[in-house]
Every structure is written in structure tokens, then in C-alpha cells.
């Protein structure tokens, strides 16, 4: 039917442009099929392989970068851990040193106090010994002076008498006995 109408038109004013030539339809189909075959068989697989390769390459690069980043992060963490450890260590050492210093200071102080106490005690003992000595000396001196003064006043020597009777010593002992309870 298409052919007959085509024929009619061709006989008249020329073929109608909207009437397809059967030969052209067939040729178009074959040509297209051939091209489709070539592109599908050879061209598309190559391009798709390229695309896949490119994607793989890019993804591989990204993966590598991610791995490197992870590694760097791990290293950083390690360094930070080490740093923290070192800080703790140094703090601990400082504390120890401080405690030790404190201890040493305490020890020294105790030692010094002990020493001071010892010196004070020694001094006191010395002082009391000297005092006893001085008191004894003074007592002898005082007795002698008193007898001398009395003999001058009385006009005769009482020295022998005094020695003989121990008068002065007795008197002084009495004085001591009177003053001692008041003093203590």
C-alpha cells in the first residue's frame, strides 16, 4: 500500500516527503545495526574499562590518602601519649624531690634543735658549776674579809680564834639555811 501510494505520488508531482522509501528504511536499519554492533562490541567496553580504571585509580588514591592520614593520626596519638607520660614522670620526680627535700629539711631542723638543746644544757651545766665555784670562793673570801674587818674593829686577831671555832662558817651556814628556803 505504501509502495502503491508512493508510485502514485511519483507519477504526479513527485514523491510525498512523508512517505518513507522502503529501501531507505531497510538501509537505515542495517546501517544503524552495524554501527550499534561496532560501538557496542569494541568502543563501549573500552570506554567503560577506562572509566572503571579511572575510578579505581581515584579511589585507590583516596584510600592511600586515608591510610596515610590514619597513620599520621596514630603517630600523633602516640606522641601525645608519650608526652603525657613524660610530663607525669617529671611531675612525679619533682614531687619526690620536694618530699625528699622536706624530709632532709626536717631532719636537719631536728638535728639543729637537738644540737641547740645540747649546747644550752652544756652551757647551763657550765654556768651552774662556775656559779657553785664562785659562790664557794666568795664564801671563803667573805669569811676572811669579815674576820679581818672584825679583828680590825675589835683590835685583836681573831683569825686563829675564828679558824678554831669555825664561827664564820657556822654563821654563813645559818644564813644559807635561812635564805635557802626563801629562795627555792
Amino acid at each position, binding site marked *: 500500500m505504501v509502495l502503491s501510494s508512493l508510485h502514485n505520488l511519483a507519477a504526479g508531482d513527485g514523491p*510525498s516527503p*512523508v512517505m*518513507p*522509501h522502503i529501501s531507505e528504511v531497510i*538501509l*537505515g536499519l542495517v546501517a*544503524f545495526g552495524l554501527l550499534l554492533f561496532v*560501538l557496542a562490541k569494541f*568502543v563501549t567496553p573500552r*570506554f567503560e574499562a577506562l572509566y572503571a580504571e579511572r575510578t579505581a585509580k581515584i579511589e585507590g588514591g583516596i584510600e592511600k590518602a586515608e591510610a596515610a592520614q590514619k597513620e599520621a593520626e596514630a603517630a600523633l596519638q602516640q606522641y601525645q601519649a608519650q608526652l603525657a607520660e613524660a610530663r607525669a614522670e617529671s611531675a612525679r620526680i619533682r614531687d619526690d624531690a620536694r618530699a625528699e627535700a622536706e624530709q632532709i629539711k626536717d631532719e636537719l631542723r631536728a638535728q639543729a634543735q637537738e644540737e641547740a638543746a645540747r649546747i644550752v644544757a652544756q652551757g647551763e651545766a657550765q654556768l651552774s658549776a662556775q656559779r657553785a665555784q664562785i659562790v664557794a670562793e666568795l664564801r671563803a673570801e667573805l669569811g676572811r674579809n669579815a674576820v679581818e674587818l672584825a679583828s680590825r674593829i675589835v683590835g685583836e686577831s681573831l683569825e686563829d680564834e675564828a679558824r678554831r671555832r669555825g664561827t664564820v662558817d657556822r654563821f654563813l651556814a645559818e644564813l644559807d639555811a635561812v635564805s635557802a628556803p626563801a629562795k627555792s
Partner: protein
Amino acid sequence: MGRLVLAEEGTFTPPGPKDFDFPPIFGDVTKPMVLIVLSVVIIAAFFLLASRKLAIVPGKFQFLAEGVYDFSRNGIAREQIGSKEFKPFIPLILTLFTFTLVNNVFGLIPIIQFPTFSHIGFPLALSILVVFPVYHIVGIRKFGIGKYLKKSVMPPGIPKLVYFLYTPIEVFLKFFMDPITLAIRVFAAMFAGHLILLVFTIGGEYLLTEASGALKPVSLVAFLMAIAMTFLEALIQVLQAYIFALLSAMYIGMALAEDH
């Protein structure tokens, strides 16, 4: 183009459909037939050469080929069919696009100067015998014939009475109009474009040779228009190739889509 001779006795015969009817070159082979074969050779050679040694970092030639390939693959096929199912259709869409593109651009190539698709037989072969069966077959293969037909012409979510109106229209569109309009769109654009170029060039030529002295310069206007129209044609030729491939991919995408 020796065929575009002026009328004998100086009367102007406007170009018409007869100018699209070529005498056979040899046997039954006419110019459009030669051009179709030439386009196949050109595209196949282009892509075979370009894809011979593909590198991750493309050279200039590979970059050009990749641009065309990428446009068909990602710009048309993936966009319309969806990134899950578009892979098997890449060769089809690539072939549709490049085949149409080269044959359209033939309209502007010197000496060739004929858009092959202005003969309706070629686009009709592609749309009715290639695209039309492909999208119905992949739809039926995916959903089964019953579900596919129901999905296509009786989508859910419409009031029952509307189906009486909707379904016949959808059947008419999906099974008759879509493939025919797909072919007619590119055919008409190429036919009309070529005719316009013929009108301005032949008209200008006629004015230059036959018009009286004072009117001769008017031919300049005709030639200028012919040049302007050539640029417009270049745009339309590329655009129509894109639309042809785009709609084909869209029909396939719609056939494969889960719901309307």
C-alpha cells in the same frame, strides 16, 4: 549542486519536495543512501581510532571522543534511565545520538550538504524498528507483560471513571504517537531547515542572475539570510540529535521506572 538548476525561461520555480528526491547515482543507490553508509564509516572510524589506546589522562583526540561518549553516557542515558539500569543502554544511546548527529550535520558540510534524516525513512527506521521495540521489550522483560501494560496504561491512584478517558489516550500515545512523533520531529526539522536554506540560496541566485539591474543587490539580503539560517540550522541539527537520543532514553527510562 548541479541539480538545483534554475527554471529554463527565467521563471522562478521555488524549491519543494522534489528537491529532496535524488536520481540514483548507480543502480538504485541514491545520495542519502551513500551518506548513511558514510556516516556509519565516519562514526565507527572515529570511535575505533579514539578508543585504540585509551589513557587515564586523555590526549586531545581522546578528550574529544570522551566528551561525546560522556555526553551520551552520563548526560543522556544515566540522566534518563537512572544510574542503576543505564549501563546496557549506553551503546544504543551513543549510537542513536552520534548517528543522528552526523547525519544531521551532513546538511552543512560542503559538497555533502544534505541532512540525511530529511528523508523520513531513516528516522522512522530508528524510532519504529529500534527504539519502540526496545523500550517495550525491556519493560515487559522487567515487569512481565501484564504488570508492564497495567503500569503503562492504567497507573494506580486515579479515580476509576477517569480510566475510561486515560487508558485509551495512554495506549494511543505509548503505542502509536510516541514512536511516530520521535521520527517526525527530527525529520520535519531537517526537512524544513534544508528547504529554508534552499529557498534563500536559490532565491538569491535567481535574483542575482535574472532580476533587472536595480533589484540585483536584493540578492545580497537573501544570501545574508542564507548565512544566518545556516547558523540556526547548525544549532537545530545538534539540538535535534540530542532530543532524539534524549527522548529515546526517556522512553526506556519510563518503561523501566517502578511507578509512573
